């Protein structure tokens, strides 16, 4: 399929259309078989959250979509285009951006360089003023070494740098992990704002109290499979089940 069809599509699609379709996704780290057939969908403009215990395969799912797991099979369609065999640089250029669990701030780059590192892949990214509006702390620390920032600031930087690129589909892996409540709240506001801007977000969270403030729908991952799924309005009714799934 020609790339141009994608490139000319509006950066932020109207809510509703299917953006990501994952079918029977399996993935391996070397010999160990981690994902055993993942199936789910994300629609344009939604915030979808993957829940699940430690080691369930949430991060591996995001990495498989991003193309950074060595061996993967099944089907991942982004805007109806098959990407299961694409390399991660091609996938990024189609408009998927990834914020890793370990944040991945570069210590040999200062904050400004970290922020400006991901290349713009298409028009429609957030302008810098808007990014500094979301994360005022970053503006004051532009010349610091990337890894000299606090954990919360590093998380903000990791999110901020992928907003510039014009990617409309963001995958955030546990953005609240290890952060203070005020910062978790700030990240919650940010996600709500991004959703309003038209971004589509696939979120991995263990903290479903936080997830419930931003998510439209949930999927539960266990042993490399999706075992359940429900919308935010069904959350209350599913609370008991959820406690069993997550063991909390």
């Amino acid at each position: 399929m020609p790339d141009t069809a994608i490139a000319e599509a509006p950066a932020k699609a109207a809510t509703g259309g299917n953006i990501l379709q994952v079918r029977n996704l399996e993935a391996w780290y070397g010999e160990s078989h981690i994902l055993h057939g993942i199936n789910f969908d994300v629609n344009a403009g939604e915030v979808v959250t993957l829940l699940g215990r430690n080691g369930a395969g949430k991060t591996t799912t995001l990495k498989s979509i991003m193309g950074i797991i060595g061996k993967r099979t099944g089907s991942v369609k982004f805007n109806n285009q098959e990407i299961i065999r694409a390399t991660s640089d091609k996938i990024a250029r189609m408009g998927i951006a990834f914020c890793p669990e370990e944040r991945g701030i570069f210590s040999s780059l200062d904050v400004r360089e970290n922020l400006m590192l991901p290349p713009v892949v298409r028009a429609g990214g957030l302008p810098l003023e808007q990014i500094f509006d979301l994360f005022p702390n970053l503006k004051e620390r532009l010349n610091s070494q990337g890894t000299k920032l606090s954990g919360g600031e590093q998380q903000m930087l990791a999110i901020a740098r992928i907003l510039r690129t014009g990617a409309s589909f963001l995958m955030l892996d546990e953005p609240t992990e290890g952060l203070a409540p005020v910062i978790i709240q700030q990240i919650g506001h940010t996600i709500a704002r991004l959703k309003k801007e038209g971004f589509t977000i696939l979120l991995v969270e263990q903290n479903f109290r936080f997830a419930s403030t931003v998510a439209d729908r949930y999927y539960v991952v266990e042993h490399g499979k999706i075992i359940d799924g429900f919308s935010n309005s069904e959350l209350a009714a599913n609370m008991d089940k959820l406690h069993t799934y997550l063991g909390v």
Partner: protein
Amino acid sequence: MTFRGTPKGPGAGSMQALYAQLLVGLINGSFYALLSLGLAVIFGMLNIINFAHGALYMMGAFVAYFLLNLGGINYWWALLLAPIIVGIFGMILERTMLKFLTGLDHLYGLLLTFGIALIVQGVFQNYFGSSGLPYAIPDQLKGGMNLGFMFLPIYRGWVVVFSLVVCLATWFLIEKTQLGAYLRAATENPTLVRAFGINVPRMITLTYGLGVGLAALAGVLSAPINQVRPLMGADLIIVVFAVVVIGGMGSIMGSIITGFALGVIEGLTKYFYPEASNTVVFVLMVLVLLVKPTGLTGRAA
């Protein structure tokens, strides 16, 4: 000016001789800096200790020789073309062989590049023997200047200044530009940089080409001073590896400064204690390794 301390040894005596040795030290330092800079860039990105570096330096000098004698292409063009030609040769090596070393132990890269060096040097030796081929100093850089305190051959001054400029330009490229930011980031976490949409494999190939091109440039610069010999790189590279060990592999500016500094230290040793001039770099290497195993500016492996 009073001179404190008594100079010893046969080379000692006049200030003239001291300045002359300092200049020789700066020249050698220029080659050390250009070569160790390339090694550092390659090591950072490919995680390979490039033992082929000396052979590629030699190829740079030979390409300049061929360009002049077969194509009538002068020194100035050779300064541009030889690094490009040898750089392309390097990129072919990377694409066809070195890229398969990803994720393997350093030992494999070391053996492979050492093998490449032996093959390349063997081929050149087979055709050209071991003696040096002459390469004339370009007309514009012939002659010398009397600086009052010493006589400066213009070509030698040019080599020092030009090398310094090239080293600083490389430093600027890596530390101060967007391309350099990609390079530094990919040195730390190539997977993530690729997941941002950057073609990291292509960048690795180009980086190897850059490092190799710097070696070839040093080869061209050295041709009029040291002649063109198949083993010119093999002799030099041993010292350069000691320089790299002293400076540490991690830092661009570190390898430039260490390169020039060790050239000068070697030159001073030739003046004050000539018997040690061939070993001083290795003695320093041992001392540095004892005190700081990662090198003066290196990061922990």
